[in-house]
């Protein structure tokens, strides 16, 4: 069973605020799902390569060239930001 501390730590990593009253629910739900996975431990996968791309594609590259956006395209994108200043997206101070 995951501890209260572990749940709070996961929430912090996931950047999701949780209330005290929600912690127990998460403990139960996550522990129940994690029990599921004990089965996988039984399997011998020492000689198995993990799946990268399921139909086997290799890395696809493109030339390192910038594609300019038009003023309208830039506006369409920036319009969605909750707060902006000219062509910058505004956030609370980072430092």
């Amino acid at each position, binding site marked *: 069973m995951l501890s209260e501390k572990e749940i709070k730590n*996961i929430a912090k990593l996931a950047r999701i*605020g949780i209330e005290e009253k929600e912690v127990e629910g998460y403990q139960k739900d996550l522990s*129940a*799902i994690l029990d599921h996975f004990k089965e996988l431990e039984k399997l011998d996968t020492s000689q198995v390569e993990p799946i990268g791309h399921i*139909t086997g594609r290799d890395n*696809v590259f493109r030339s390192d060239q910038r594609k300019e956006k038009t003023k309208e395209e830039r506006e369409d994108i920036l319009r969605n930001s909750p707060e902006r200043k000219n062509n910058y997206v505004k956030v609370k101070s980072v430092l």
Partner: protein
Amino acid sequence: MIRKLHEKLISGEITSAKLTEEYFNSISQKEKDIQAYLSLTKDLALEQANFVDEKIKRGEEIDLLAGIPCAVKDNLCLEGKRTTAASKILDNYIAPYDATVIRKIKEVGAVILGKTNMDEFAMGSSTENSAYQITKNPRDLERVPGGSSGGSAAAVASGEAAWALGSDTGGSIRQPASFCGIVGLKPTYGRVSRNGLLAMASSLDQIGPLTLTVEDAAIVLSRIAGEDEKDSTASVSFGKKYEDYLTGDVSKIKIGIPQEYLKEGLDEDVRNNFQKAVEKFKKMGAEIKEISLPYSQYSLSTYYLIMPSEVSSNLARFDGIKYGLRVDDKESSALKADGMPRTLLETYLDSREYGFGPEVKRRIMLGTYALSAGYYDAYYLKAQKVRALIKKDFEKAFEEVDLIFSPTTPETAFKVGEKTKDILKMYLSDIFTITANLAGIPAISFPISEINGLPLGGQLMGKWFDEEGVLNAAYTFEINS
């Protein structure tokens, strides 16, 4: 359906504008009961319809899909229109671009009626996890249409759209198709570009059609398949017209029945109806073989490790900064945040706490844990290795058979509210569908029977990139029903 409508359009029996209006009438009559749509795009639709009508008047050739009204799941970006993934966190998001599949269907003249309801961020099997509304199953309004593409399935099944696009990560096209009595196809991973699809689990997601007939699904697939410079996981295609491969003949086809799927515990009605469908394939000349997929018993665990891990990564972008809901946004007074965020961290914590629904948060938490230091090897990496074993099962099976047949779901549509309290029970809905996503193979659900008046779907799975094989067998069953 699509071909019939196409004939009517080119013969002049009906115009696309009239046809589109008829669908909007159908929507205004049925939506109070069905609630399949989150938003309608009437101006766009009529503009598209008029454009096609002009082409017909000038005697120009039009594509099979031209002028025919469809619905699009709300996790696909439609330029200039609200795209929410049925989440509050994207309540005010206006997509600045078209998803590649949208661009493609627009290019052939399709008419887009609106965006359909779904489980929030495609997480769920009933569409009950939508942050906005509950969609009802047109076959029984007290039951769910399935999920996560429940809105698209319900729209097609109720005649509120001629066809629809959905997405499938663990069964989200096929299970609703089964519950609503229609056809749903999940193509091979990489067959269709995912550009513009709000990503859930990048190694599992695929976009596909929900339609009334198998031929319709083939027609839609032909128009959306293909490589894309904006999606490096999409595979090269050769402009195949899948509808040309529907011969209606399965006499030389070997169909495998996985013994693990039909063990004890499977509902007797489902088993009996499935057996009848197997007999039908035999009568049509297919050879039936029992096969084994020994690692399939681990698919649920494998899926519920890989999927949330990828989800936790993909949903990290919803932080209230570049787009979507931000909790200290002056307009979001509907949220009850205790005091406004004072720091950047609190902006993230609060926006995501209030913007995401409980199932989304649960899966992000699960994935975050599975990927965190000390657990990555034991969980995610282990699951990706077991996934290789599951894929090998299919490689071996396809040496003996051409197709694999099973029920799509272990049950018919359940009642609204019936499974919401037990998440593990809800997860079991996907037990027959998730293997196709894990292995990356194409899979189709098509109606095979009814139990107590509720539709039951059968699922055909095929070899990688053998959509034509899967479609033809389903088509043959359909025309012989």
